[in-house]
C-alpha cells in the first residue's frame, strides 16, 4: 500500500538530512502512529507521501503511484486518493460545515447530485448531522476537527494522513477524535497519524514508527510512546 525504499530527503537550507535512508512499508487498512520529537522528520515523511516534496534519494510508492517519479499532471490523482487532516483544521471560515465538506468534491469536479448525496452521509458518520449550516467559528475545536475529517474522508480515500490532529484539543475531545479515526480505519482506510500525544499512543496499542533525526529508530507492531527511550 505504502512503501518507502531507502528514502532520503535533504533540504537545500539544511546540512542535516530531514530523512536519512528510511525504508518502511505499511499495509492496506493499517493504523500507524508516526512519532518522534519536533524536527525528527515526521512532517517530511507525510509531505513525501503527498508529493508536496520529492525525495533526494530513494523511492516512494502509494497504492499504484510511483510518487517520486510521477509526472506533475498525475499528482492530483494521487492526492485524490489521500485524505488530510491537520492540527489547525484548515476550514474555510466563509463556508458552512456542509459547504466546507462539499468544497473538496466540487474542486475535483464531482457532479452536484453526487455531492448532495454524499455530504450528509459523511457528516452523519462524523457525528455532525444537524450542524450542516453552522459556520466553523460557531463550532468547538473538536467539532471543527470533525468537519476537517469529514472533508478528508468524503471522497473515500485509500489513505488518511493526520498530522497531529489532536494537537489543539483537550484530552476528552482527543479521545472522541481518535474513536472517529478508528471508525474510519475500520472501513479499510489506512490511517497514518503523526503525533506527540503519549496518552493516545499508549491507549490505542497500534503500530508505532518512531523517527529520530530522520532515521527510523523503532517500528513496533503494537507499541507505546515511551519504550526504548
Amino acid at each position, binding site marked *: 500500500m505504502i512503501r518507502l525504499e531507502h528514502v532520503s530527503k535533504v533540504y537545500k537550507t539544511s546540512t542535516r538530512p530531514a530523512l536519512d535512508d528510511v525504508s518502511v512499508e505499511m499495509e492496506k487498512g493499517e493504523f500507524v502512529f508516526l512519532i518522534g520529537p519536533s524536527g525528527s522528520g515526521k512532517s517530511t515523511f507525510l509531505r513525501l507521501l503527498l508529493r508536496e516534496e520529492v525525495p533526494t534519494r530513494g523511492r516512494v510508492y502509494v497504492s499504484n503511484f510511483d510518487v517520486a517519479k510521477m509526472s506533475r499532471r498525475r499528482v492530483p490523482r494521487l*492526492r485524490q486518493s489521500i485524505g488530510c487532516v491537520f492540527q489547525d483544521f484548515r476550514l474555510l471560515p466563509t463556508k458552512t460545515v456542509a459547504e466546507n465538506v462539499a468544497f473538496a468534491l466540487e*474542486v*475535483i*469536479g*464531482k457532479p452536484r447530485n453526487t455531492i448532495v448525496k454524499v455530504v450528509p452521509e459523511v457528516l452523519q458518520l462524523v457525528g455532525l448531522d444537524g450542524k450542516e449550516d453552522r459556520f466553523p467559528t460557531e463550532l468547538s475545536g473538536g467539532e471543527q476537527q470533525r468537519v476537517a475529517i469529514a472533508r478528508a474522508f468524503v471522497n473515500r480515500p485509500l489513505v488518511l494522513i493526520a498530522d497531529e490532529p489532536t494537537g489543539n484539543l483537550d484530552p476528552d475531545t482527543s479521545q472522541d477524535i481518535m474513536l472517529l479515526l478508528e471508525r474510519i480505519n475500520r472501513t479499510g482506510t489506512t490511517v497514518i497519524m503523526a503525533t506527540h500525544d503519549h496518552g493516545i499512543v499508549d491507549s490505542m496499542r497500534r503500530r508505532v514508527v518512531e523517527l529520530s533525526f530522520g532515521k527510523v529508530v523503532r517500528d513496533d507492531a503494537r507499541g507505546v510512546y515511551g519504550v526504548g527511550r
Partner: protein
Amino acid sequence: MRTSFVFSEVVTGLRRNVTMTIAMILTTAISLALLGGGLLVVRMVDKMQANYAGKLEVSVLLTNDVSANDKDCTQQPCAGLRSALEQTSGVETVVFQNRDEGFERFKRIFEAQPELLKLARPEAIPATFRVKLEDPDRTDVIKQAFEGKPGVKGVDDQSKFLERFFEGLNGLRDVVLILALIQAFAALLLISNTIQVSAFTRRVEVGIMRLVGATRWYTQLPFLIEAVVAGIIGAVCAVGLLVLGKAFFIDRITRNLTESGIIPPVGYLDILIVSPWLFLTAIVIAATTGYVTLRLYVRL
C-alpha cells in the same frame, strides 16, 4: 468541470479585491480606448486613400500662349506634349482640357461661392492635360519629364498635398498607439498584481484545493477568468468611451471637414468594426498575463 463552481469563485474573487479590480478595469479601458482611437485613425486613412486613389491626377498646366491659341491641341507644342505624355510608361489616360472647359469646371466646383465666380476670368485658367497614372504614387516621373518643357507652365501634383495630410494623420496614429502601449503596460502590471493579491487572499482555499487533488486548471481557472472578466469589462468601457468620444468630441471638431467631403466621417459602424479587436486584445492580454503570473509567482 463544474462551471457554476468556477464562476462563483470568480465573483467572490472580484468582489473581494474590489478596489484593485476597479483600477484594473479603468486602466484596461483607457488603454483599449486609445488603441481603438489609433485603429479608427488607421481606418480613416485607409478610407481616404481608397477615396482619393482613383481620383488622383497630375495636372500638366500649359503656358498662357498655348492656352489662348490652341483650343483643340492640334498645333505644336501641344500635340507633341500630348503624344509624349501618352507614350510615357505608367500613364493610364491623358485628357486635354482647354481654357473654356477648365473655366466651366471651375464654375462647377465653386458654384456655391458666387462672389468668387464674379471675380474669375477664363484668362486666369490655363489649358491643362489631366493625366491619370496606373500607379498614383509615381507622380515624380511626370514631374521630372515635363516640368520646364516648352509650352509647360508647371506640373501640379495633388498627391503631394495629400501625402503631407496623411503624414499628419499617421503621426497622430503613432502618438495614440504609443500612449496605448504605455497604458497597456500599466494595465499588464495591474493585472499581474491583482492576481497575486487575489491568490494570496485565497491561499487557504488554494491550499485545500491542492491537497484534495484539484487539477492545476481547476485551481488556476478562477484567477484567469477573473482577469479575463475584468479585461472584458474594460473593453466594454473602452467601446463606451469611443462612442462618447465620437458623439461629443470627434463629430464636433471634424464637422466642417466631413461635411465638405475632405475627410470621411467616423461612423458608429467604424467603432463596431474596431471593437472586436479591442475585446480580443483584452482577452489575450489578460489571459496571458494571468497565466504567466500564476506560473512565475504563485505556487498553485
